[in-house]
């Protein structure tokens, strides 16, 4: 990564164990917060001043697939996982090209796009902290039929596909967790097919914004009308009109390619039922296991 700690020393071990919040960068006279700590502090300052978080909360901030794992399995995976910052527009995998990394998003949002000749790419699914990018790997297949595009920037934990395959073989809980996520993802894509077919743009836009906001864990999203038009498979004018309608109702604020979600509940009321249906699918993927207690690190 970025750290110049003595190799194999206690500091490196502690970092690998997830017990470290920050590192001092003497070269640049800087204190670097590790991603998990940065996120926790951001969440805390958003909720309440001087919030004291319990140890188990750290897991709930991260990625649901990873945090559902038993302690030993997660510790083992940590050895091959590295936190990366993904930028908007990065392509994580292309159709037909072997998938290089499995990504477990934390607060970034990835759009799964079907590439259609003669048409702009169409968003068929969204992946965030509830899941994983590169799911064909979990099926023993090393290519995808979709393009994975980073829509909202943020942090993800990534693992090389070779290591991922190894870890998958060794960890039954990881296999099971990914089975359940796969099921929810297929459900999400199937729901989108029907949604695209029947539901009006405004309702679909509200749903898309809510889904993105849930995964990005923030209210401000960087989305242009053009990008949204491509994602939703509609004309740009249609998006502009729908966005104006949402703005008039004070549900969003939209300026210069930045959307701010002002009223989640209002958006929920306007979104099509697909939002709730898909959310329930993803939630039940984790509810079945029941809450899992995991001490930090």
């Amino acid at each position, binding site marked *: 990564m970025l750290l110049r700690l003595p190799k194999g020393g*206690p*500091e490196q071990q*502690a970092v690998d*164990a997830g*017990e470290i919040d*920050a590192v*001092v960068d003497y070269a640049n006279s800087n204190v670097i917060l590790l991603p998990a700590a940065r996120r*926790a*502090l951001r969440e805390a300052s958003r909720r309440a001043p001087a*919030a004291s978080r319990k140890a188990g909360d750290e897991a709930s901030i991260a990625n649901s697939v990873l945090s559902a794992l038993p302690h030993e399995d997660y510790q083992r995976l940590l050895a091959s996982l590295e936190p990366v910052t993904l930028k908007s527009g990065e392509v994580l995998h292309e159709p037909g090209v072997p998938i290089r990394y499995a990504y477990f998003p934390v607060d970034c949002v990835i759009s799964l796009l079907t590439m259609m000749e003669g048409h702009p790419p169409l968003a068929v699914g969204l992946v965030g902290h509830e899941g994983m990018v590169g799911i064909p790997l979990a099926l023993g297949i090393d290519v995808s039929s979709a393009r994975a595009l980073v829509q909202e920037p943020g942090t993800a934990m990534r693992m090389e596909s070779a290591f991922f395959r190894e870890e998958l073989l060794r960890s039954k809980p990881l296999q099971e967790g990914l089975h359940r996520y796969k099921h929810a993802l297929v459900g999400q894509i199937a729901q989108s097919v029907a949604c695209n077919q029947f539901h009006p743009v405004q309702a679909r836009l509200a749903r898309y914004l809510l889904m993105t906001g849930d995964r990005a864990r923030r209210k401000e999203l960087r989305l242009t009308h053009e990008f949204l038009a491509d994602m939703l498979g509609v004309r740009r004018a249609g998006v502009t009109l729908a966005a104006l309608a949402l703005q008039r109702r004070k549900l969003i604020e939209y300026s210069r390619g930045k959307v701010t979600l002002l009223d989640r509940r209002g958006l929920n009321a306007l979104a099509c039922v697909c939002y709730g249906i898909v959310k329930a699918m993803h939630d039940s993927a984790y509810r079945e296991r029941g809450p899992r207690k995991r001490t930090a690190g």
Partner: protein
Amino acid sequence: MRRPPRKPKARAAALTTVVVLRLYVAGGAPNSLQAIANLEAICKEYLKDGHKLEIVDILEHPRRAMAEGVLVTPSLAKLSPLPAANLVGNLSDKAKVLLALGIKRAAAAA
């Protein structure tokens, strides 16, 4: 002249030394909070006689952290009595912390 017998209390005081600790943390980040909680519990249980705990937030005082050679946080430094010791991480391994603090297991309750 017979010397008055030494008072037992005075002797105990001479043997007890105050343990001086400094814990470097990163604001209210998860591991830092855990380290604080763990350390306070250990001090309460094993260092009843006396301890001085200073918590330094390296987000507030980065230059101090650099001057004192901190690499990562949370990071515990035992300054006194000698030998000095260091321990990094969230201090959830009680045995390791006691070892770093120089607290003998025999003296420790359960």
